[in-house]
């Protein structure tokens, strides 16, 4: 347990890294704007990092990948919408959104964990379907929530808009904070720092007594029971942390993106994060902060760099979205087939 981190990074991660560097070199030969490609991928890494981080607690506690991440995301969206409703701007708006989102996510996380404790062994399936159900339930919810602000509700009819712009609130406020450019590459330092701080907090938690016992309970529940650890409570704690990270994550994501996306948008947000942590070398029952960092970097830069190059070469505009879906679901499928520890 050196540093509380065990590096289980394999040769495949190195190959992928080398592949990305090759792609970057190729892009400059194709006459593409390489610095802007790098900038794009850094922004995407920053946007997605917290979602990837949210996978860590549930893996540690033995639940596995958190397919129910959108539950937390919806809590963050509600918090965000409330700040827009009251026309809050700047950092105070951003942090108010986070502060409203967190308690909601705690409540939802407790409910989610309680539900998963009743369905041990099929948490990932249950999480997936719970995700779908809740996202669609909230499609009704968005229609009837009593928002009044003209920036949120449809100009005609009832309900909230499907995308809500943050132009006048806190668009890119973290991205721009302390940001700078080197050799044409823009570094959104504020957002990256925010990500790193959260990673550090989670890492601290994992090296605290509770964190170590959570890993122990997740690694072998019977062993946990023989030490008098309440396994169910540990699992609930992990879903709470994961949901809170989901809520914070969507606010950070949206400020960078410039919009809150509602209705069915959160439904697919867990999958890139799942693919990322798996690409970073994690398995469904073992993961570390290193896997999170590495995974976010590899997956996002692979997609943001490789896909424009692919469309450049094949000149087919719809290719990138197809490939994105193919790659992320392919990785998840591959990792799930390895779940039982059997070779395929």
């Amino acid at each position, binding site marked *: 347990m050196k540093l509380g981190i065990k590096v289980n990074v394999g040769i495949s991660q190195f190959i992928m890294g080398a592949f990305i560097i090759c792609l970057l070199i190729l892009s400059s030969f194709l006459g593409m704007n390489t610095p802007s490609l790098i900038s794009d991928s850094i922004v995407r890494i920053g946007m997605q990092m917290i979602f990837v981080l949210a996978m860590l607690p549930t893996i540690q506690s033995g639940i596995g990948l958190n397919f129910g991440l959108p539950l937390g995301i919806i809590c963050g969206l509600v918090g965000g919408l409330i700040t827009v409703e009251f026309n809050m701007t700047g950092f105070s708006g951003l942090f108010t959104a986070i502060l409203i989102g967190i308690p909601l996510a705690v409540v939802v996380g407790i409910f989610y964990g309680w539900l998963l404790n009743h369905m041990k062994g099929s948490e990932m399936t249950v999480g997936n379907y719970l995700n779908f159900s809740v996202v669609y339930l909230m499609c009704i919810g968005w229609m009837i929530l009593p928002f009044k602000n003209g920036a949120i509700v449809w100009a005609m009819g009832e309900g909230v808009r499907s995308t809500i712009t943050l132009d006048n609130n806190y668009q890119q406020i973290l991205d721009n904070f302390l940001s700078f450019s080197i050799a044409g590459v823009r570094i959104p330092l504020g957002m990256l720092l925010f990500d790193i701080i959260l990673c550090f907090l989670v890492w601290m938690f994992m090296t605290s007594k509770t964190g170590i016992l959570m890993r122990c309970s997740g*690694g072998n529940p019977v062993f946990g029971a023989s030490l*008098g650890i309440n396994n169910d409570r540990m699992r609930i704690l992990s879903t709470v942390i994961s949901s809170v990270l989901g809520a914070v994550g969507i606010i950070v994501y949206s400020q960078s993106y410039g919009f809150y996306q509602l209705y069915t948008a959160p439904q697919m947000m867990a999958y890139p994060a799942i693919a990322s942590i798996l690409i970073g070398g994690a398995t469904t029952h073992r993961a570390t902060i290193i896997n999170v960092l590495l995974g976010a970097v590899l997956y996002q830069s692979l997609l943001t760099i490789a896909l424009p190059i692919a469309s450049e070469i094949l000149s087919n505009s719809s290719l990138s979205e197809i490939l994105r879906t193919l790659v992320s679901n392919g990785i998840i499928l591959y990792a799930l087939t390895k779940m039982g520890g059997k070779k395929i």
Partner: protein
Amino acid sequence: MEPKYILEMHGICKEYSGNPVLKNVDLRIRPGEILALVGENGAGKSTLMNILFGMSVIHSTGGFKGEVLFNGEPVRISSPLDAMKCGIGMVHQEFMLINGYEISENIKLNRENLKKNILQKILGNKLGILDRSQMRSESLAVLNELGLQLEPSTITGTLPVGLKQFIEIARELDKKNIKLIVLDEPTAVLTENEAEKFLNCVKEVSRKGISFIFITHRLKEVKAYADSIVILRDGELVGDYSTESISIERISELMIGRTVNFDRSVDNDRKFSEDYELELKNFSVNMPGEILKNANLKIRKGEILGIAGLAGHGKAAIANGIMGLYPSMGDIFLKGKKIDETDTLQTLLDGVAFVSEDRRGVGLLLHESIETNVVISSLRVYNKFLRRILGIKFYDRKAAKNFTEEMIKRFDIRCTGPSQEVGRLSGGNQQKVCMARAIALHPELLLVSEPTRGIDVGAKKRILDELVEMNTREGTTIIVTSSELAELRSICDRIAIVSGGEVVGILSPFDDSYKFGLLMSGITDLGEKGESDEIRD
């Protein structure tokens, strides 16, 4: 001419990856004879039967040496189907009956009487229609033969356990060519009355010329019903007697072995005060496969108590029940204070430590480092190996590493260092890690289950020495549950015997071997009852 023996097995040797499990075993059965095959767990009885039935586990591990003659002729049995064709049948310990089927369907399973129809002629027997009336009348005939008043159309699942065993034997008897039936602990799940009825029935059938191999741990039944007895110990044939010529005591002694010259590493006549470290009153544990009923035990402060018994008889349940890992009833008193066994953390805080018999399943975090495995209990229970920073308890890597290195040295754990994954260690070294974790707790009462199971001789000695050391130096009271009687006798002050889910007696390690064997097979008139308060010295 009828051959003298229905089955002869000559010079059977078998090894699993270099470990000999059967050494030159001979077995002969006359027609109509009931032969009892007795021996402790792991003596080689199942392996011998697997060879007889040509089970794939034998052939996939390199076959066996020796010769099998059936009806006087050498046979090659390479699959259970071959055995069936020869006329060898088996009645299993676990019921191989389909509860939703009626009795006649179970008896006729896979040998159903069929009515002819057109589809069957085109597509083969699989599409035949069952001739139920024929099946029922034939089943009824077999049941009557066994003296059973049962309607063949009854659903099997509704029968009491005692009767199900009869259905199994009826199924074997219904096979027309059956000559030899192996009974694998048929009476284990039966009450004494049912067992008697069942065995009388077996005896009756054997008069018609069908032979039986009767595997059991109940020596009384052996004495009463078997014609001859074959005793195995550690894969060797140690006795082949006719039943009249041998006493139960002698059978038991041969089973256990004359290990009188065990090395004691503890003083022989230690005196203890009458302070009880632990008391169990009417303690029952519902541990699947190891059920314990109404155990009463008192363990004195500072002693080493052994718990012996056959697998599946409930000895493992005592320690697991105290730790609250399985639901239990009854009272546990620790130093006179009643404890709530469901509150495992409080039990640990009260100074109890537990080393599980299921090392890989319960005892270790296989994917974690040696360091984590060694310190985790003390970290959990006593907040050791933690540093407080801003009021939050963080892992203290340095202290944990130092302590683990100390333990690695003390136990001679063969590893690359404290950060090596425990799953990659050998069984013996894994057990040392488990022991190190228990020691880190400095327990007042240590529950150790199967401390030497599946580990090499060197590690065994190391672990037993360590137990004695803890006991003599720190005054730790120790309860050792083990299948290795010789080891228990080398370190324990007293040995409790568990049989059939009950504590049937407490013996001194110096008692004669046969007494252990008798108690383990459930014969209690020689040892004193566990309930009695007196303590034998």
